[in-house]
C-alpha cells in the first residue's frame, strides 16, 4: 500500500507553471477517540485564473484541505505532512508570521455561513478595512475608501451608509456579498470559497455565483471552489476533483468528470441526484450505506464497502490495495479502463436520463 502511494506521488501532475500545487497532503487530528485521518495523500494543482472545484460530502476532507492551505489548523492537535507550494513558496513548513502575511492578502477565503463567519461585534466596514490596513499599510481613510469601493462592486446598495452597519443588519445574501468584498480587499491571487452559497436561497445563490464568476474575470484570481452540489460546481469550475473519505477519487475537467465519470463514487453521486430535466419515471439510485468513520477507515479503496462493482475486480484488490490516482484525467479505481467504459455506458448512463 505504501509503495503504491509512492507511485502516485511520483506520477502526480507536476506542472511547473501551476500556481498552487499540493502534493501528497496528509492531515491527521488527534481526538479523544483516536486519530482522525481527515486527508490522506491528496495531490492537486490550481492554475492562475482558473477555478478548481472540489466536490465531496461531509467528512470527505474538502474543507480540512483548504484550512490546511491557509495554515489554520491548530498545530497542537493536528499533524500535517506533504507539500503545499503557492507561487513557489512552501506553506506547510512556513512560519506563522509568513502565513499571516499571505492570508487575506495573496490568498483569501470565503466561508459558508456569513452570519457566523462575520464578527457580530464590529461593523462590516471595520472588518473589511482590517486586512487592507494590515497588508497594505493603508490608513483608516484609505481602507474606508477601498472598502466602500468593494462593497459597491459586489452590489451592496448605499455602501457608504452600510459601511457602518453591523453584520446582523444585513440580509443573508448581502452578508455573503460583504464577505466576498472582504476576501477581495487585497486582490488575492488565490481565493478559496468553502460552500459559499450553501446557506443561501436558490435565487440569491444564482446571483452570488454569477457575481463570483464576473469578479474572477475582472480580478483574475485562481479559485478553489468547495461544494457538495454538483450543479453548482458544473456552473462554476474549470477542473474538478472528487473527494471521498479524505482522498481524491477522480480528477479531470468539469465536462469530463460530470459527463464521462470514471469512478463508481462519482457514478453514485450523479445517479442519486434528481435533475430538473431528468426523466420523470427514472428511479433514483442511491449509494448504499453511509460514509466511513475516519477514525478507522476501510483498508484498500475507502469506497469499496459501498461499491456496487467491486466484484468485477479480481482478487482482494479493492479491500487491500489503495488504487492510485494517475496523472491529469484519472480515477482512483481498480476497474480497468474498458470495464469503466462498459459499466458507464451500459449501467450508469441509462440512469442519468
Amino acid at each position, binding site marked *: 500500500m505504501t509503495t503504491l502511494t509512492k507511485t502516485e506521488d511520483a506520477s502526480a501532475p507536476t506542472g511547473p507553471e501551476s500556481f498552487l500545487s499540493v502534493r501528497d497532503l496528509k492531515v491527521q487530528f488527534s481526538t479523544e477517540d483516536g486519530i482522525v485521518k481527515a486527508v490522506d495523500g491528496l495531490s492537486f494543482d490550481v492554475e492562475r485564473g482558473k477555478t478548481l472545484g472540489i466536490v465531496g460530502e461531509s467528512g470527505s476532507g474538502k474543507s480540512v484541505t483548504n484550512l490546511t492551505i491557509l495554515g489554520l489548523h491548530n498545530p497542537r492537535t493536528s499533524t500535517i505532512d506533504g507539500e503545499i507550494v503557492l507561487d513557489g513558496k512552501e506553506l506547510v513548513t512556513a512560519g506563522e508570521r509568513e502565513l499571516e502575511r499571505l492570508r487575506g492578502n495573496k490568498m483569501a477565503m470565503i466561508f459558508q455561513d456569513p452570519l457566523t463567519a462575520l464578527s457580530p461585534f464590529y461593523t462590516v466596514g471595520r472588518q473589511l478595512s482590517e486586512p487592507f490596513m494590515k497588508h497594505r499599510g493603508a490608513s483608516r481613510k484609505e481602507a474606508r475608501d477601498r472598502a466602500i469601493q468593494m462593497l459597491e462592486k459586489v452590489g451592496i446598495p448605499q455602501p457608504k451608509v452600510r459601511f457602518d452597519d453591523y453584520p446582523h443588519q444585513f440580509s443573508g445574501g448581502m452578508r455573503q456579498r460583504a464577505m466576498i468584498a472582504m476576501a477581495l480587499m487585497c486582490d488575492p491571487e488565490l481565493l478559496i470559497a468553502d460552500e459559499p452559497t450553501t446557506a443561501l436561497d*436558490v435565487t440569491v445563490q*444564482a446571483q452570488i455565483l454569477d457575481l463570483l464568476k464576473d469578479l474572477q474575470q475582472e480580478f483574475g484570481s485562481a479559485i478553489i471552489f468547495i461544494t457538495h452540489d454538483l450543479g453548482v460546481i458544473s456552473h462554476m469550475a474549470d477542473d474538478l476533483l472528487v473527494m471521498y473519505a479524505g482522498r481524491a477519487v477522480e480528477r479531470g475537467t468539469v465536462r469530463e468528470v460530470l459527463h464521462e465519470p470514471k469512478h463508481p463514487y462519482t457514478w453514485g453521486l450523479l*445517479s442519486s441526484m434528481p435533475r430538473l430535466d431528468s426523466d420523470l419515471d427514472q428511479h433514483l439510485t442511491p449509494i448504499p450505506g453511509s460514509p466511513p468513520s475516519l477514525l478507522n477507515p476501510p483498508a484498500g479503496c475507502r469506497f469499496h464497502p459501498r461499491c456496487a462493482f467491486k466484484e468485477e475486480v479480481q482478487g482482494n484488490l479493492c479491500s487491500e490495495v489503495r488504487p492510485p490516482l494517475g496523472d491529469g484525467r484519472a480515477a482512483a479505481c481498480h476497474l480497468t479502463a474498458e470495464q469503466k467504459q462498459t459499466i458507464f455506458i451500459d449501467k450508469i448512463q441509462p440512469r442519468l436520463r
Partner: protein
Amino acid sequence: MSDNLTLPAPQGTSGTPADALLEVKGLTKHFPIYGGFPIKRRVGAVQAVDGIDLTVGVGESVGLVGESGCGKSTTGRLITRLLEPTAGSITYAGQDITHASRRQIAPVRSEIQMIFQDPYSSLNPRQTVGSIIKSPMEVNGIEPEGGREKKVRELLELVGLNPEHYNRFPHEFSGGQRQRIGVARALALNPKLIVADEPVSALDVSIQAQVVNLLQEVQRELGIAFLFIAHDLAVVRHFSQRVAVMYLGKVVEVGDRESIYNRPRHPYTHALLSAVPEVGVDSEAADRERIRLSGDVPSPIHPPSGCRFRTRCWKAQDKCATEEPPLVQLSGNGDGHLTACHFPEDPTTGSRGDDIVMDPALMAMEEGDTPEA
C-alpha cells in the same frame, strides 16, 4: 388587459382532485410582534402565511416550494395543527379541523403525521428507537394486532432498518438512518397524510436519494398522501405530482408538475427555475433562460402592497402595486394550473433573446464586459 385573458378558477374540476383529503382555504398565520413604550402592545405582525388555498387528494403527493421566509414550513405546521391558524379553514376528510380542540382532533391527528428536517434534533436522545416509534401508539392508545413491539419491528424493517436495533439509541445511527426512524415513527399510526418538512435537506447527497426513494415507496405502496415541503426544486419535481410555489406567504402558482416545471407563467416561478444550477453540458445550459433577481426576499413584516413579488419583478407596473393578482387559471394554462399574476410570462423555460439581470452589481460588470467581448 390581462383581465380578459383570465378565466375564473374552476371549482372541483380535474385540476383539483374530486376526492380531496385535505382542503385549505384562505389559511393565514400572523405572528404578532410586541413592543412600544411604556406599555408593550402589538405593534405589527410577521405575515408568515397570508391567505393560501391548497388541496391534497387521497394518496396524492403535493410539493410546496419556495425560498426561506415564504411560509412553507409554517403552512406545514398549521396543517398538522402544531400552530393555531389566525384565519382561514383546514378541512380534513370533510371535517373542519381549523380550531378543533385536542379531544376533537384526536382521531384525525393519528391520520396526519409529520416528518421533520433535522434528524439529529427531532429524536429524543434518551429514548431507544423502539420507544420512539412506539410512543405515538401509546399516546393514542392504539394496540395493533400482535402487540406494539411486533409492529415496531415491522416498521423498522419497512423503512430498511434492522429490527434487531429495537433497543438502540438515536446517536448510534447515521443521519440517513435517523431520518428512517423518523419515517417509521410517522408510519406507526397508519396515517393517510404525511407532512414532510424538508425531509432530506440535512442529508448528504448520496443519502438523500435513499430517503427520497423510501418516501416514494411509502407513498405509492401504502397510498399515503404527502405534502412535501422543500426548497430543492429538483427533489420536489421528482417526488410530487402537483406543486405549489410560495412567495412571501402567498401561493403564486400551483399546478401539476408538468405545468409548473415546463410551462410556468408566474415570473417568480421562472426566476426560481432559472436559478437552479444544473449539471448540464454548456450547450444544454444555453437553452435555458437566465434570470437574476436583485437583492433578497423582502421582510414579511411589511410585505409589498398588491403583488408581493413586484419589488423584484421585471414586468411590474403600477397595477401590480395597487391590485393583488388573484390565483386563477390563465388562458393557455392547463386545468388546475393557477397563476397569481397580472402580466404573466410565456409558458416556456427556454432561453430568450436577452437575459434578465436585475442585480445592479452583475449589471454593471456585465455591461462593462460587453465592449471588450
